[in-house]
């Protein structure tokens, strides 16, 4: 109980001391720099997309006997609305896969005017609705000739993503998740050790060590920084998520279609799991940083000690990236089981594999390793902070004696 209470006191102090300062605003807005660079790249991409707009088209693959009727109906309808250029051909729908991968193809109609199948980039798209109206017009003309007054056309709509490049897009999404989790956990996990350096420098740590269980101090520092990390992530998820939704609504259909990818597990699960895996990665990395960082007394020593941890984490990132790009391989399995790469690799798995149970197993597995890591790091932290001698801690060469002579 005392451990938890002290942890909350330390966490509260750390959290408020970071968040309620002007420098936190700088920290919070630091990704703007990254977004700025992305925006520069985005401008180029936008110009490319505008250029691509000239070759946008919709496709109708219809029975040869309806070919002329479709062309006539298109000419008639085009007078009142201006859809992209229509390419009509007769024949079977064997080319749909290739056409679906072409981002300039906004919608494809196959089948007869009476029973058309319409493939579109986004549900209820203008291009899809235009093709449905086209089929309806052709079908009605046919019925009028036969003096039939029944319903003319019964269109079936599908999205092109479901037939084309979904798998590759999901892999890309998985890699994106790996990269983002790695970047965030490394940046924010490394912050924990910076505060510890300050406390060792100004001797506050000794007061804390005398007043509260060191386990509580350790957990408090971890929880405090976790709070900062969650605030940071929530801020940017809301900002970027809202921004994307807005931008998506404003995009041309062919560009918007490119963003219509859904992780295999679905967005709500994917976001929830990514958050949990971020927490897991942060706790694993943050506790190691705290335990090892406690051995250092200066910022320079902290940088020296942090470097191997960073290299190790980059290795785990590479492994998880390989897993994201090659789901189902042995490397993917290794990355998913190895505790340090597991959070990243499992987040990537959520993009390509719809099953939930592997995530429950992985989270349990990671929880065990978090407990082990924290237990070991607390021991290291205690030895480093107090140099308790019998605690089995270690020290930088030539440092211990100098530090311990009171």
């Amino acid at each position, binding site marked *: 109980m005392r451990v938890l209470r002290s942890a909350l006191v330390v966490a509260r102090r750390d959290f408020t001391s970071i968040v309620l300062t002007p420098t936190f605003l700088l920290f919070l807005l630091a990704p703007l720099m990254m977004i700025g660079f992305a925006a520069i790249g985005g401008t180029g991409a936008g110009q490319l997309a505008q250029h691509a707009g000239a070759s946008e088209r919709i496709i109708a693959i219809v029975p040869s006997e309806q070919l002329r009727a479709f062309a006539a109906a298109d000419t008639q309808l085009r007078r009142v609305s201006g859809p992209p250029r229509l390419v009509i051909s007769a024949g079977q729908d064997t080319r749909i896969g290739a056409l679906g991968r072409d981002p300039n193809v906004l919608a494809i109609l196959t089948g007869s005017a009476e029973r058309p199948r319409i493939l579109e980039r986004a549900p209820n798209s203008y291009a899809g609705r235009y093709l449905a109206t086209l089929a309806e017009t052709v079908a009605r003309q046919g019925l009028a000739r036969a003096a039939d007054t029944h319903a003319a056309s019964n269109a079936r709509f599908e999205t092109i993503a479901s037939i084309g490049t979904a798998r590759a897009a999901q892999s890309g999404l998985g890699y994106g998740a790996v990269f983002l989790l790695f970047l965030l956990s490394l940046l924010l996990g490394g912050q924990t050790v910076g505060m510890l350096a300050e406390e060792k420098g100004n001797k506050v740590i000794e007061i804390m060590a*005398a007043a509260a269980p060191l386990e509580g101090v350790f957990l408090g520092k971890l929880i405090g920084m976790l709070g900062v990390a969650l605030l940071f992530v929530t801020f940017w998820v809301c900002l970027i998520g809202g921004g994307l939704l807005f931008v998506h609504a404003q995009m041309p259909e062919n560009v918007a279609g490119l963003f219509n990818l859904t992780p295999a597990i679905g967005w709500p699960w994917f976001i929830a799991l990514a958050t949990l895996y971020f927490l897991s990665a942060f706790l694993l990395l943050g506790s190691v940083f705290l335990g090892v960082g406690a051995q250092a007394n200066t910022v320079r020593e902290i940088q020296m000690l942090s470097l191997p941890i960073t290299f190790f984490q980059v290795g785990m990132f590479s492994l998880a990236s390989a897993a994201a790009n090659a789901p189902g391989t042995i490397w993917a399995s290794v990355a998913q089981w190895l505790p340090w790469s597991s959070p990243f690799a499992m987040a990537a798995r959520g993009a390509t594999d719809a099953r939930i149970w592997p995530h429950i197993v992985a989270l349990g597995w990671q929880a065990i390793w978090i407990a082990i890591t924290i237990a070991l790091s607390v021991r290291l932290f205690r030895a480093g902070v107090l140099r308790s001698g019998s605690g089995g801690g270690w020290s930088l060469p030539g440092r211990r004696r100098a530090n311990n002579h009171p």
Partner: protein
Amino acid sequence: MSDVVVATGLGKRFGDYRAVDGVSLSIARGSIFGVLGPNGAGKTTLLRMLMGVIDPDTGTRSLLGSDRPRDVAHLIGYLPEERGLYPSMTARDSIAFMGALRGLSWAEGRKRADVRLETLGLGHAPGMKVRKLSKGMAQMVQLVGALIHDPELIVLDEPFSGLDPVNQERLEALVRAERDRGATIILSTHVMAHAQRLCDELAIIAGGRRHFLGSVEQARALLPMAVRYRPRVDGDAAEMERLLPDGATRQDGEWRFALADDGVEPLLSALVAAHHGVEGLAIERPGLHEAFVHIVGKAAAEKAS
């Protein structure tokens, strides 16, 4: 009075260096106990071991009835030798934080901080950032933080260093007030004047070992009474040294020597008979400073031999 602290044979090494070597002591409840010693004597290491901040290599200790000092950490107030405050926090929040670590609510800690700083003449300080406080003010803030939860045991490591005379007096009054409240105080210092005025009992540590344990009066009693004698007619040095006891020294026309067992009267008779007369005579009990120098000097000589 029951003992609040009992230590037996405490020892601590750092590599080849023996910081504390078999120190035993006991401290009565409601007393002010001084831990005195020269720089590097092992005082801070001893205090850290007593509080469970570090573990001893040898020996046992009991604090407030517990063999596990960290279990009673919330009943202790600690002012470490090296001061530690967060520069970006206000004085009020710094004190409340230290109270919260010991189980006091933040709100109560803030309330008490305002009252106690006001009492110490620092009514303007609660809202100030620590980085804006003078060294002395910051030290008083930290002291208030150590006492904010009304601890049963207060450990003050070199509390007077860096304080001006006014604040030193305030601190002395504060220490007495805490003792009167019922708290037990352990005071580490190498300024003997404070220890002599405040301490009920003390231990003198040198080279990691305890060389004295007892009251201030007992420490002073280790040295004989000192005599300061100023003759009306000074003789040559050889003659005076013949008349005065062994070890007599002359300084600014005044002779100093230890009081003999048979008192000063026979000597005075001899001096008057030799026509030196008496212009001034003082018989003084040596202070804690002299006792400390004597004990520590003896310890150093023993170690050297």
